[in-house]
């Protein structure tokens, strides 16, 4: 089953799916391991594994610092791949890589995607790789049946959304607002109109991320989006209360 089919299948039982995010190696792979186990146990549907990069331009302060501390702690791409392989083998939910293009470019785009496929990670989110720059990447993803997740933004025109949707698979990641990750989002009429535009542009499921931090935010998305993406909020939670706090937090979200 493709990732998109699998998501649609799960949506038959659940009104909205949860996708969570963590930065690999931050604060450590041990903590990552525990956090993921708790997330899966509490019903998280998809997990984004961010491979740290030294210049994460699309990320706000929380994820930025997590990236930098992971790198300062000596975390290597090879270790991230090994850890992802372990998680994909152990847990049945889909895992995705999130990272910046230079990580793939340095590794070799084809080699990286072959490896992604081999270890059972289902797709990738690369925020600094627009389709115009990613012809090789998109072709290799298609060949390997990996989902090259495309991103919509409130600033994307209808025409642009159609182009992006044509290159995408798995689902579309709809950035909820202007700005970087980790700040508050207001779900007003403009947001609803934006999501309606997203919906018209694609048959793929819609994930909404940026500023989704609690149950109230997830409630707001119910009926509009298919997947709620929780990013900085869990990183902040683990920093403040440790990995054990993740179980209760996830349980309250939906």
């Amino acid at each position, binding site marked *: 089953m493709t990732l998109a089919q699998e998501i649609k299948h799960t949506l038959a039982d659940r009104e909205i799916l949860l996708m969570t995010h963590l930065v690999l190696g931050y604060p450590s792979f041990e903590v990552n391991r525990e956090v993921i186990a708790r997330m899966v146990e509490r019903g998280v549907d998809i997990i984004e594994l961010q491979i740290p990069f030294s210049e994460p331009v699309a990320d706000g302060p929380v994820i930025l610092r997590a990236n930098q501390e992971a790198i300062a702690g000596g975390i290597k791409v090879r270790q991230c791949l090994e850890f992802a392989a372990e998680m994909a083998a152990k847990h049945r939910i889909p895992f995705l890589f999130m990272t910046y293009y230079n990580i793939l470019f340095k590794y070799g785009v084809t080699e990286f995607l072959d490896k992604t496929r081999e270890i059972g990670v289902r797709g990738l989110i690369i925020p600094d790789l627009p389709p115009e720059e990613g012809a090789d990447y998109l072709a290799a993803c298609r060949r390997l049946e990996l989902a090259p997740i495309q991103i919509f933004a409130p600033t994307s025109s209808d025409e642009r959304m159609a182009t992006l949707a044509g290159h995408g698979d798995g689902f579309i990641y709809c950035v909820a607002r*202007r700005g970087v990750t980790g700040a508050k989002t207001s779900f007003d009429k403009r947001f609803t109109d934006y999501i309606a535009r997203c919906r018209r542009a694609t048959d793929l499921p819609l994930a909404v991320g940026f500023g989704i931090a609690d149950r109230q935010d997830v409630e707001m998305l119910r009926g509009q989006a298919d997947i709620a993406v929780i990013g900085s909020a869990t990183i902040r939670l683990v920093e403040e209360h440790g990995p054990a706090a993740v179980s209760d937090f996830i349980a309250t979200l939906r």
Partner: protein
Amino acid sequence: MKTGYYGNWGGAFVPEILHETFRQLNAFFTEAQADPAFWRQYVDLMGSYSCRPTPLTFAENLTRRYGGARIYIKREDLNHTGAHKANNVMGQGLLVRRMGKTRVIAETGAGQHGVATATMAAKFGFECTIYMGEEDVQRQRPNVFWMEKLGATVVPVTSGSRTLKDAINEAFRDWVANMDSTHYVMGTVCGPHPFPTMVAWFQKIIGDEVRGQIMAAHGRLPARVYACVGGGSNAMGIFQGFIDDPGVELVGVEAGGKGLDTGQHATRLATLPAGAPTATPGVAQGYKTMFLQDDDGQMLDTHSVAAGLDYIGVSPMLADLCERGLVRCTAATDTEVMEALQLTMASEGIIPALESAHAFVQAFKEAGELPPDQAIIINQSGRGDKDIFTIAHAFNDPSWKEFIRSKGEEYTP
């Protein structure tokens, strides 16, 4: 060739949130480029506000000293705000006005581009925020003082290595939130398309001028043209005057820092000694070029006595010209730079910026090899006297230290 590429380098690796902003920027820029009135307006502004055309000075004493080619210095230091940065910034200011935006943001390393942008914002009535690495804020206090007095908000950047590259990242983070009102005034010929093309277009005013000036002064084209290379904007500016002249050798001089075998430098294009880790192709900060990075693609720390050259990447245009053998790239160490600076001051009464002094180093090494009927041009991209704190510190000057100590006491309650 693909849009926005220079050979194998360049591109526009921008997050989707900025796609529309870049589409508009490209449209406005293309329209301005095609409008002769826009260029005239730019040249007039630079004439009335920034001392253009800047002179080409014959360095008689240095020429005599080396006994070879006639040494000419293109005086970009005489621009308003003291560096070639003004060219790009005033040009982008006109573009911002054309786009109807009301706020500008910029990154700065040494502070030159920040001061220039704050100056432009004051003149045009724009709001202005400058991102500057915390380490640079401390190194370049006088420039921070001027930016604030000019009305800009200076934001110290505390992430990463707290230098120029981190300031660029923060400026992007501001831009993705505020693109409706705000233009990002990129300071150099780097970043996503159309920035390299745009900045090079404004900076070509240097090359346009100097070509006529050397013909008037020397009667023929120069044998070589030297320019320091950080991001590469002053180099691209002057090189464009001679890019189609096979007889003119273009020489870019990068920061050799503490030495090319030490790993503490910002040399991306010049050949390093065997075994030293070299820059490799990569994609970061929105474009593809040669970056100083590790095997995983994580960017490394760089070092130079000149903050304006202390950067991990380099213009994709220069990466291409270098790859095609049209520009020769070399490097000068911190020590060599201080010697060349001292010599230029004492011989000609001219104080180059630390960045510009890199170009002088290489010119001095080679001037004697050339016959006296030939000429070379050094692009003096900026002036050094306003960096008195940095230069005095680099000279380790005892009486200056004493002065600072006594000033410190004066301000101690």
